[in-house]
């Protein structure tokens, strides 16, 4: 089946969902699932080898003829939108149900459909103006989804921050597309690599798309928006919408000529984003904020891959460039899958306990075995550990960087530091997710809320299971997914159309299967040998202390103490210490908080200065007519004197 009817069906279904979401949850769910399945089918048929689908109509929208096109790059992202969009709608059926949220649930469904529809529009538009319209629509839809719980002050603050930051980005994109249209004479998009005078426009696109992707230091809106949104919204924001920023960068770099410095800047920004993102993530004690910062890190990894691929294009090194690009594209999928899984897990914890603060949780595995097991899987996957899918994409990126180094091309000077930073990032990601998993699910419950937790229902468990299965599928059969990614690479760089599966990826895939099997077998054998279920149970051996309390456990802050301390110059943690005083000390407290450093120490002061200057200038606007006449006279006199003096010289 050609993608056309499927896409039309998907669009119609989602548009109907915008209306149906208001009044019936079940009808809406059915519509959304059918639409996302259709969109997935369209994307799949294209990635599996179908011809590019194109639709041109002379019927103008906003004065421009409609031009839609689905190629392999769009299809790769469309597949992700469809999978996470479908999974999230099922999840929301229980997580944000009519019973729990009678006010906001219908609104949430409506905006969910609108978000999916407009993201599809962004991916299919082949016209700059329509791209901008769809971009703006999806930004606004995401704003209303973030602020579903708008009676809470911090949710509103996060929403406004998101909206204003996004519009800063949109402004850059407006400038970018308008300048592009002005210089080419048309809003139509497409390859124009020979027009070298367009190269400087890349910087506008980098700011606009980079802001949406959450690139450091433009990530300021991301942590609070992703943390305060409902969890299914956080999942699609972190898993999918920030990837549209990557999509924009892929398109820009694929179509336009680039400044010489662009690949170097991109790979450098990627490395900084990865390292700083994970440093902030490690120091967080709020689970969803941790996951949000971790998204920043993963965007960094994708940018390293993309920047490296651009270096390869510039130098004409197809072999390792392909590996880097394939790694970046695989990571787009992988991160979309496991980050959504983790946010769904976080939502399940929040649903069960009412808190995101990891130091108030603990021991949840007993009450929530499904969530715990799936979260652990996602945690291992996002740490880039074999035999899971995160390792596949990170291995490809590493391999590309190493090949660039051994090839001794000039790109090695970027690849060497990038590889080392990637290694540090990987180790920190591991530490971060050991901490997150352990604080929430292991040990003893730290509060009553954690003691009375309950497992989530089948509607929330099902989507998590599906995402976990997809993660495992990519992990164990990367060669099956390679041709799909290879097609997208070919669409990005026409010279790279023939990308056979690397032999080493085939070996790696087999080894991943063997490793998974052996790990399972070893785990079961040891559990059986230890007679796990029947083994005698005793208190944890705490240096022979017989009455341990749950509060004595290592907390999130103490776990992050050592490595977090190395990044204190970056994190600027705020500490308040009240030492115990006197012979019978009653109170001693220590409060430690990691602020939104970049926002609070850089952006807010700058914004405050701008606001002060604007307030000062506003004094001129007081509404007294005689002063306005005086302004006019002064201005006229001034202009006149310039004319007179200028005429003489």
């Amino acid at each position: 089946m050609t993608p056309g009817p499927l896409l039309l069906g998907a669009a119609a279904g989602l548009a109907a969902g915008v209306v149906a979401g208001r009044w019936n949850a079940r009808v809406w769910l059915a519509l959304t699932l059918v639409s996302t399945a259709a969109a997935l089918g369209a994307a799949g048929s294209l990635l599996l080898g179908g011809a590019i689908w194109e639709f041109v109509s002379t019927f103008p929208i906003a004065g421009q003829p409609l031009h839609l096109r689905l190629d392999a790059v769009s299809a790769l992202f469309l597949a992700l939108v469809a999978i996470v969009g479908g999974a999230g709608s099922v999840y929301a059926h229980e997580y944000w149900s009519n019973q729990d949220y009678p006010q906001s649930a219908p609104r949430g469904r409506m905006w969910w459909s609108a978000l999916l529809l407009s993201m599809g529009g962004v991916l299919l538009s082949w016209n700059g103006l329509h791209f901008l319209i769809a971009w703006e629509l999806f930004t606004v839809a995401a704003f209303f989804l973030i602020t579903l719980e708008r009676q809470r002050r911090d949710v509103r603050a996060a929403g406004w921050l998101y909206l204003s930051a996004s519009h800063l980005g949109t402004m850059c994109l407006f400038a970018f597309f308008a300048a592009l249209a002005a210089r080419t004479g048309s809003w139509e998009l497409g390859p124009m690599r020979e027009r070298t005078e367009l190269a400087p426009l890349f910087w506008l696109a980098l700011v606009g798309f980079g802001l949406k992707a959450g690139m450091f230091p433009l990530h300021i809106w991301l942590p609070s928006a992703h943390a305060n949104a409902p969890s299914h919204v956080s999942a699609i924001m972190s898993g999918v919408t920030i990837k549209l920023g990557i999509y924009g960068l892929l398109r820009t770099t694929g179509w336009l000529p680039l400044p010489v410095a662009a690949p170097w800047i991109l790979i450098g920004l990627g490395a900084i984003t990865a390292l700083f993102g994970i440093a902030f993530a490690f120091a967080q004690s709020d689970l969803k904020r941790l996951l949000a910062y971790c998204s920043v890190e993963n965007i960094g990894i994708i940018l390293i891959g993309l920047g490296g691929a651009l270096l390869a294009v510039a130098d004409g090194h197809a072999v390792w460039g392909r590996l880097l690009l394939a790694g970046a594209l695989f990571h787009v999928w992988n991160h979309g899958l496991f980050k959504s899984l983790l946010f769904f897990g976080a939502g399940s914890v929040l649903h069960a306990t009412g808190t995101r603060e990891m130091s108030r949780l603990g021991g949840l595995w007993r009450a929530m075995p499904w969530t715990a097991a799936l979260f652990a899987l996602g945690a291992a996957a996002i740490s880039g550990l074999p035999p899971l899918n995160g390792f596949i994409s990170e291995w490809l990126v590493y391999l590309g960087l190493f090949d660039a180094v051994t090839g001794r091309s000039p790109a090695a000077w970027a690849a060497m530091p990038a590889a080392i930073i990637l290694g540090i990032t990987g180790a920190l990601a591991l530490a971060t997710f050991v901490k997150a998993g352990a604080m929430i699910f292991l040990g003893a419950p730290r509060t009553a809320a954690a003691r009375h937790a309950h497992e989530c229902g089948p509607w929330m468990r099902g989507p998590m299971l599906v995402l976990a299965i997809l993660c495992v599928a990519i992990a164990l059969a990367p060669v099956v997914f390679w041709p799909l990614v290879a097609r997208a690479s070919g669409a990005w760089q026409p010279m790279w159309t023939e990308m056979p599966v690397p032999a080493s990826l085939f070996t790696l895939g087999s080894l991943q299967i063997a490793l998974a099997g052996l790990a399972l077998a070893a785990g079961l054998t040891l559990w059986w040998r230890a007679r796990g279920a029947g083994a005698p149970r005793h208190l944890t051996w705490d240096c022979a202390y017989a009455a341990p309390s749950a509060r004595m456990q290592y907390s999130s802050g103490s776990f992050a103490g050592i490595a977090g301390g190395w990044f204190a110059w970056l994190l600027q943690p705020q500490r308040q210490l009240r030492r115990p005083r006197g012979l019978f000390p009653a109170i001693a407290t220590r409060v430690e908080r990691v602020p939104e450093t970049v926002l609070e120490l850089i952006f807010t002061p700058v914004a405050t200065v701008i606001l002060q200057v604007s307030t000062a200038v506003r004094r001129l606007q007081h509404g007294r007519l005689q002063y306005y006449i005086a302004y006019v006279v002064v201005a006229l006199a001034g202009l006149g004197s310039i004319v007179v003096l200028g005429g003489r010289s």
Partner: protein
Amino acid sequence: MNAFAIAFVEFVVRLAGWLVLAPLLPGIINKVKAWVGGRRGPPVLQLYYDLARLWQKGVVLSTLVSPGFVAGPAVAWVAVLGAALLLPLGPIGASLSFHGDVLLLIYLLALARFCMAWAAMETGSAFEGMGAAREVSYAVLAEAALITAVLALSVHSGSVTLVTMLTPAAGAGAVLLAAGLFTVLLAENCRVPFDDPSTHLELTMIHEVMILDHSGPPLAAILHGASMKLLLFAVLLVEAVLPLGGLSRLAAAGALAAGVLVVTVGVGLVESLMARLAFRRVPLLLTTAFLLCLFALLVAWKGGDA
């Protein structure tokens, strides 16, 4: 006998070699420490007796732990064994080798670390939390050093495959690389000066404190895995420094064995002659190791230019 059967027999011998020889190393280290201290010390085969005894024993579990507490050590053991099997053994090469296998090796060690830290956190003990936090934090610096060392080897040999990376004659940076990798070996295997495997004062430890609650077969898996990891790092260090590729098969095998013995005795001597560092000094030493590897990388880069 066809080629497949030969490969199979070779694989089994290699597997048995790793499994059987690894527990020798801690025994040798302890013997060296005893000699230097003027004691007779435990027999070299002590760890074998311990493992046999532990495997027979029952298990006591904490009331808090999930099945992950037992599965963690099992997966970690598999991961370390897998990493060991990727490593070529001088003259007989690797049983399986592919472009980029060195990265799999590094990440298998990371998988083992994840599982051990996870299992430690299962108990809810503050001591084990402390150990896990130290383990994963210091590993950040150790991993940076290890990646840099691997980069140096890659640059020197122009390859990302372990077999070809480890065969050529070591370049001018061999001494730097040896010093860096030896420090990483000490840190990753929790030896003095990073950790003191002979104390039982929990506050001062990394590895030992993470396994306080393990007993019976899972503890046996942990101890055996730790000894395999030590052997793995020793073999990696020796092969990175000695030009085994240029020697005849017998000489290469002898050089490899002698090199591993020297490294092991070296660990024992360091342990006898040095005290454990204060914890705040640990990052400094690891950063030094990273810098040594970085200089080795630069030397390898310049060496290739000449």
